[in-house]
C-alpha cells in the first residue's frame, strides 16, 4: 500500500494527512491548508525541522540566550547542529532577530537570537 499517514505539525490544528504515492506522484489529502501539502512533500522527500535551543553568554545576569534556526534544517542533522550550538559563546547583548551565526555549518540556515538581552 503506497499510502503514508502523518500528522501535520505546521500549526496546532494537527491535521491528519494521507499521502498517496501510488501514482508515482505525491497526492495529499486530509489537509486544511496549503501548508499541509508542503509539509507532506518535505516529510517524504527531505524531512526538516526548525530547531530551538539556547547558547551560552558571558553575562552573569543573562547566562543563556534563546536561539532558533531561521528556517528549517535537515532533521537528521539536528544533533550535529546541537554540537555547534553548544560551543557558541555570545559576548554582545543581542536582541530578537540578531544573527548569532550567519550560516550554520553544513546548512545554509542562520541561527538567530530570540530574546532581548537588554531586558533584565
Amino acid at each position, binding site marked *: 500500500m503506497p499510502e503514508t499517514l502523518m500528522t501535520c505539525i505546521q500549526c496546532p490544528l494537527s491535521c491528519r494527512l494521507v499521502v498517496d504515492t501510488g501514482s508515482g506522484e505525491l497526492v495529499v489529502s486530509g489537509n486544511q491548508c496549503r501548508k499541509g501539502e508542503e509539509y507532506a512533500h518535505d516529510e517524504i522527500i527531505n524531512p526538516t525541522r526548525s530547531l530551538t535551543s*539556547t*547558547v551560552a553568554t*558571558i553575562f552573569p545576569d543573562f547566562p543563556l540566550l534563546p536561539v532558533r534556526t531561521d528556517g528549517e534544517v535537515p532533521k537528521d542533522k539536528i544533533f550535529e547542529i546541537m554540537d555547534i550550538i*553548544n560551543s557558541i559563546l555570545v559576548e554582545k547583548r543581542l536582541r530578537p532577530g540578531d544573527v548569532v551565526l550567519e550560516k550554520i555549518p553544513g546548512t545554509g540556515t542562520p541561527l538567530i537570537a530570540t530574546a532581548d538581552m537588554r531586558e533584565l
Partner: protein
Amino acid sequence: MEGGLQLVKKTLQSKGFPQVELSERRGAVVLEGEVQNWDDYLAAGYGAVGYGFRGVVNNITVSGLKNCFTESRPAVKDLSLDSSEFDVVIVGGGIIGCAIARELSRWDLKIALLEKEDDIAKHTSSRNNGMIHPAMAVKLGSKKHHYNLRGNRMYDQVAGELGFELEWPGSLALLTKSWQILLGPLAKRSARKKGLHGVKVFSRRKVKDLEPNIGDEQRGAFYMPESGIVAPYKVTVAYAENAIQNGARLFMNTMVQGFVMEGSRIAGVRTNRGIIQAGLVVNAAGIWSDRIAEMAGDRFFTIHPRKGVIAILDKKTRNSQKLILGRAQLNGRSHTKGGGLTPLIDGNILVGPTATETPDREDYSTSAKELQFLEENHLPLNKALKKDDFITYFAGTRACTFEEDFIVEASKYVENLVHAAGIQSPGLASAPAIAVDVTDIAVSILKKKADIKANPNFNPRRLEAPNPGKLGLEDRNRLIAANPSYGRIICRCEMVSEGEVVDAIHATLPAHSIDAIKRRARAGMGRCQGGFCTPAVLNIISREINSDITEVCKREPGSEMIVGRTKDKARAGYEN
C-alpha cells in the same frame, strides 16, 4: 519477680504464644522467640505489660521480616570530634534534645548535641500536628499527663522568650450521638481532676455558631480552650538557636554508634567522627531511644513505631475553620489522639494523623489507602473542605513503648546516663517541662562530681533575624530601604523574601539545603510546592555558601538537585 514471670507466661500462653521465652533483666521482662507477624509481636509485647516489671524488652523475632528497614545514616566519616571533651552529650536533635540543650545552657557547662541528620527536627519533630494538647486525652497519674499539663502551661513564656508563634484557638471534641452530651458532667469532672480550665459542653447550635461549616452529623462538642498550635520545627529551631547562642554546640551528621563503658559509667561516645569524652549522656534519640539505651547496656523498654499520616490543605481553606476539630474519644482505650482537623499557625489546615503500627522506624512513605482514610474520616468534619485542597502529605512515626508512657529518668544502672525516651504524643506539648526535669536530673548527677555554676551569660531571649511579614508598615519599609532584598519576594505562595532566605542560610543554625530553608523560612511550602521558587532558592544558596550549583542539595549530601550544566563546552573555553 519469679511470680511475675509466671503470670506473664500464662498470659502469653493464653494469647497463643507458648513459644515465647521469658527472662528478667534488671527489673525488666525480656521476651524472646519467634512469631509469625508484626501483629503477634505487638500482642506479645502488650501482653507482658502490667506485672510489676519496669518495662518490656521485646526481642521476639518475626519470621520473614528481614532487617531491611529504612534508616538514614550520615555519609561522612572523619575524626573531627575525636578526643573532644564535653560535660554533657545529648543524643538527638528533635524537640526534646534541643529543648534540653537550651535548658542545660542555663548552666556553665560544655554541651554537645549530636544529630545524625544534616539538620535538626528531621524526624518526628517536624512530622506532627503541632498541637499543644490540653492534657485531657492522657491518663491521670501518667508521666504523659504530668508533662503535658506542665508543658502546656509553660508555652506562653517559652514562646515569648524564644520568639516563635503560638496561638490558643481551643479545640472541640465533637460528639456524633445526642446522648453523648449527657456525658458532659463526667467529662467536666475528669477535666477538673486533670487540671484543665474552662472545659464546656456545647450544644449543636452553639457548635454551629462557632463553626458554621461543621459536619451535619455532629450533635455537640466538648470545648477545651487550653489547646494551642505552634509550628513544631520552628519551636525546635528556636530552642536550638537559643542553646547555641548560650554556648551549646550542635553537631549535625554525627551519629552515636556506641559507648565506651568504664564499669557502670559511660566514658566515651563512639560516633562516625571519633570518640567524644562525655561527663554525662542524655538519651533523646526519639524513635531510636531504645537502641541508645541498649548501647549503654541499659535497655529496659522497647520502641515500636506507630506511623501517622498527615495531609496539609491549601491556605485558602483557613478561613473556613477557627478551632481544632476532632472526634471525642469516648472508649478511652485507643492509643491515638484520634486525629482531626487542626488549623496551623502558618495558615493552613492539617488533616490527620492516622495511626498504624509498623516495624519500619523511618519509613515515611504514604499510601493511597491512608490518604483515603483522611479524606473519608476527617475531611467531613468541616464541610467546606475538599480533597482538591490537599497540597501535600507526609508521615511521622511515634516512639511508643509497650507501657505507652514517657520515660524521663536517670538510668538505674549507668551512673551518667539520663533517658528522655519513648516521647510519643503529646511530646511536643510536653517538651518544655521534660527539658526542665531532665536538666535538673542531669545537673544533680554532675554536681556529685564537681561544682556546677549557673551560666553567667545566659540570655533566655533568642536573637533572631527580622521577619518582614510580621512588621508594621513603617518598620517594614525601613527594613526594605536598608536592605532591598527584604522587598524582593521569591516564594510567591508563602510570600518569602530573598532577604529571609539569606538570613536562614546565615542563621545561628545555618540552613544550607532546600528542605532546611523550607523549614526555616517556608519558601517552597505553599500550594505550588516549590515549583516556582526552587530555581531562585538554588541560586541563592549556591551564591551565599559559595558552592557550585551541582553541590546544592535538597537535604543531606546525595540529594543534589542539579546534575550538571548545559553549554559546558562553550563556557569551558571562556572561563579558563
